[in-house]
């Protein structure tokens, strides 16, 4: 092999590639790459496209079993839904673009994830999102919040896909790097799934959708670098979303698929034409001719590398049998979309580009797609040594717990997100049985079938503060928290997708957090039998900052977010978390730990949350959730809520005020058994649920209940009664429900 000499190219000319990577490319080519090649390598070898730092860990995740039909690797994962139906879902980040331009960034994030779903032949039926903003009082937060929510609504509403759930978190660790993670699920027929790996030699390659413009050039490499606000060049890369065109693209693609006019298809996401062409060729084990003269352009005079790197939205690349092209074109014409022959599938595993009617470049598929793979150095973060178990005795017990309770319930991280989700159309599609605002969203298949009651449940969760304090537990907790929300509604967790948002992988401490969090996700996913079927990694969520003479890097907490799918046989049996009738009895199922470590209470009341959160007993968790599901299946349970941020008080309060028909209260009288009152009220993520039931639970059903509890080894204790408009706990809490309700719904 001929050894190339070291490059002296300046770093900014490497588009995010390291000098070593550049040299490796030169070695593979036998010479230094030209601009076209460098553009393609920098995109395909970027962290965003190649997963070069995360691959070794992602490989360890469980991806098979249960109802999984297709795991990670395709545009989205596929789960069997019975009766010939499948569900297709994935979650994706759009953090960097949303920080630069929150409206367009979040809008195109939603557009991008929906394209991933309908590329597979599935009609999107629900969106969710997980949003993280800087501290609520940060001057830029209202702007980001309002623009991101507007952008998400703009795109999803126009597409006619209901947005049925999500989470909104405020924390100063996101002041300089907001997170926007978007989740979409679609439904398809089992025999109607389309893949990017099915190209056949002789197929023509077809470009459909919007024309190519200067949008988002080097977007993929941008997502793989930390921000430097002074480098204005990154600012010229804003992609504008056009949901109207995407709706047409959706209908046109599904119509063409239905008519069997498509052999293989891939959306143009990050690194646009580059990744779609090389990945389709690679996965199909073939090569491709791409004729750059045929690409519809919005901006005249774009250079070949600009065409290849453009991230213009609402475009797809597909392979089609030659004879069927005119029929295919007919479909796209009907919807008013571009549909042009852009090349051909060939045997030789290269992509050969034509430009100005001549062969322009030929690049080897394997060389381009087999980017580097790193096992980056890891090191346990220094700060973790200071994270000790909490000694609550060293913190003063607050005098008036009513005031504390009100502070907790009106904290922006606890308070209702109604003002957010009412900006999303969550009723379109006539499938939303339990709308946003409760534990998990419950959807039915509205299709054209009546009396078809099977349904599915969706939830997204993550807790970065806990992940920061204990990365393994934080990862596991994201999975169990989703499962708790789904189980509490009567669903059975089935599969997950993940979005792993972290700082720079080149920092060994971040990499350690990453590996531990993935380990946590893995353990919980195995235990709960929820394989990972798709996902996304977003690194470099950090920004170089200057504060006077000091320069520092503002990093997010490690933020793994999980999106989970669950099933329910009959949506009529779904349980909601809110109280139903006065006089019903309130129970705790499970056992309380009373650990306030890392809690919101410690954070906002004692200004110190840096303690170790409780560990998760995954065996116990599984039994607990199975037990609850059995009780619900028997029809014994009228409401069920998990205990998450804000602790038992918050779970009880929300259950009392969330019933759309009327407001309730409660009287709880419970022996807290050695716990301090604040530990009982505000400890979070307890392995326990708050349930209500009528008197029969302890009467006619007593024996049946006892049997179920015995089977799983779980404790059920009555703690109180559902009341009218007053919240009373053990003589330490005495509040009017209306006051709490007013605060809860008006805080953000």
């Amino acid at each position: 092999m001929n050894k190339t000499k070291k490059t002296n190219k300046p770093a900014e000319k490497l588009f995010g590639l390291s000098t070593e990577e550049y040299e490796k490319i030169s070695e593979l080519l036998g010479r230094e790459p030209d601009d076209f090649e460098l553009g393609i390598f920098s995109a395909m070898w970027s962290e965003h496209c190649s997963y070069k730092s995360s691959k070794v860990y992602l490989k360890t995740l469980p991806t098979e079993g249960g109802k999984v039909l297709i795991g990670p690797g395709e545009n989205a994962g596929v789960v069997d839904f019975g009766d010939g139906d499948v569900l297709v879902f994935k979650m994706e980040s759009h953090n960097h673009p949303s920080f630069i331009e929150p409206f367009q960034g979040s809008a195109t994030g939603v557009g991008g994830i929906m394209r991933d779903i309908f590329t597979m032949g599935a009609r999107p039926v629900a969106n969710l999102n997980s949003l993280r903003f800087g501290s609520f009082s940060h001057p830029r937060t209202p702007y980001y919040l309002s623009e991101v929510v507007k952008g998400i609504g703009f795109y999803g509403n126009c597409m006619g896909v209901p947005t049925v759930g999500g989470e909104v978190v405020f924390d100063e660790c996101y002041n300089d790097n907001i997170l926007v993670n978007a989740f979409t699920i679609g439904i398809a027929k089992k025999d109607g799934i389309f893949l990017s790996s099915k190209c056949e030699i002789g197929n023509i390659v077809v470009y459909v959708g919007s024309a190519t413009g200067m949008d988002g050039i080097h977007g993929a490499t941008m997502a793989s670098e930390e921000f430097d606000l002074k480098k204005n060049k990154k600012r010229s890369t804003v992609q504008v979303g056009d949901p109207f065109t995407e709706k047409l693209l959706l209908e046109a693609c599904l119509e063409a698929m239905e008519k069997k006019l498509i052999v293989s298809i891939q959306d143009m996401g990050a690194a646009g034409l580059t990744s779609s062409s090389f990945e389709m060729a690679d996965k199909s084990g073939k090569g491709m001719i791409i004729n750059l003269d045929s690409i519809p352009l919005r901006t005249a005079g774009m250079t070949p590398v600009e065409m290849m790197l453009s991230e213009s939205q609402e475009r797809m690349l597909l392979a089609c049998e030659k004879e069927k092209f005119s029929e295919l074109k007919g479909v796209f014409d009907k919807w008013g979309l571009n549909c042009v022959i852009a090349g051909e599938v060939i045997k030789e595993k290269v992509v050969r580009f034509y430009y100005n009617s001549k062969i322009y470049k030929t690049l080897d598929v394997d060389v381009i797609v087999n980017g580097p793979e790193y096992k980056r150095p890891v090191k346990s973060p220094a700060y973790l040594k200071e994270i000790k178990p909490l000694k609550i005795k060293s913190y003063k017990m607050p005098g008036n717990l009513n005031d504390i309770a009100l502070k907790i319930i009106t904290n922006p991280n606890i308070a209702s997100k109604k003002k957010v989700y009412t900006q999303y159309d969550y009723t379109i599609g006539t499938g939303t049985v339990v709308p946003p605002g409760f534990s998990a969203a419950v959807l039915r298949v509205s299709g054209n079938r009546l009396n078809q009651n099977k349904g599915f449940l969706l939830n997204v969760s993550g807790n970065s503060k806990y992940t920061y304090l204990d990365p393994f537990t934080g990862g596991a907790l994201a999975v169990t928290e989703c499962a708790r929300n789904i189980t509490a509604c009567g669903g059975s967790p089935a599969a997950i997708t993940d979005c792993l948002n972290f700082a720079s992988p080149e920092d060994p401490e971040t990499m350690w957090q990453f590996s531990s969090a993935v380990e946590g996700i893995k353990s919980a996913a195995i235990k709960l039998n929820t394989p990972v079927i798709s996902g996304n990694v977003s690194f470099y969520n950090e920004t170089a900052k200057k504060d006077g003479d000091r320069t520092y890097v503002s990093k997010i907490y490690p933020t793994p977010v999980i999106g989970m799918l669950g099933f329910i046989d009959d949506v009529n049996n779904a349980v909601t978390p809110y109280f139903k009738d006065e006089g019903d009895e309130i129970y705790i199922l499970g056992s309380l730990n009373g650990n306030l470590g890392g809690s919101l209470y410690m954070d906002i009341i004692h200004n110190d949350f840096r303690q170790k959160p409780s560990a998760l007993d995954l065996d116990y968790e599984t039994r607990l959730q199975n037990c609850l599901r059995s009780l619900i299946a028997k029809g014994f349970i009228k409401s069920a809520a998990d205990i998450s941020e804000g602790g038992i008080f918050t779970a009880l309060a929300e259950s009392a005020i969330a019933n759309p028909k009327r407001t309730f209260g409660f009287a709880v009288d419970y022996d807290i058994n050695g716990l301090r009152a604040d530990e009982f009220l505000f400890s979070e993520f307890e392995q326990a649920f708050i349930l209500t039931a009528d008197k029969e639970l302890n009467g006619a059903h007593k024996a049946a209940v006892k049997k179920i509890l015995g089977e799983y080894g779980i404790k059920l204790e009555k703690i109180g009664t559902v009341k009218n408009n007053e919240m009373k706990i053990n003589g330490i809490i005495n509040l009017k429900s209306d006051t709490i309700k007013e605060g809860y719904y008006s805080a953000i």
Partner: protein
Amino acid sequence: MTKKAFIKVTLKEEVLDPQGKAVLSVLKSSGYDNVKDVRVGKYIEIDMDEGKSASLKVEAEEISEKVLSNPLIEEYSIEIK
């Protein structure tokens, strides 16, 4: 005295204009064949009190830059009358 600032906010040339594209397609299908392109922007009128401001022009610039337009994708022009 009250003056008026007239501000046009338009998308930068290289930025996609979905609205313009949709209007164009409707005009074409309604038979306006000679229409080649459509761009849709905003037109804002501001009534300003001259007395209190050093320079209306400077102030209108500032408002256009910071509030009315998104400098990442839009540009603006101002006329004061």
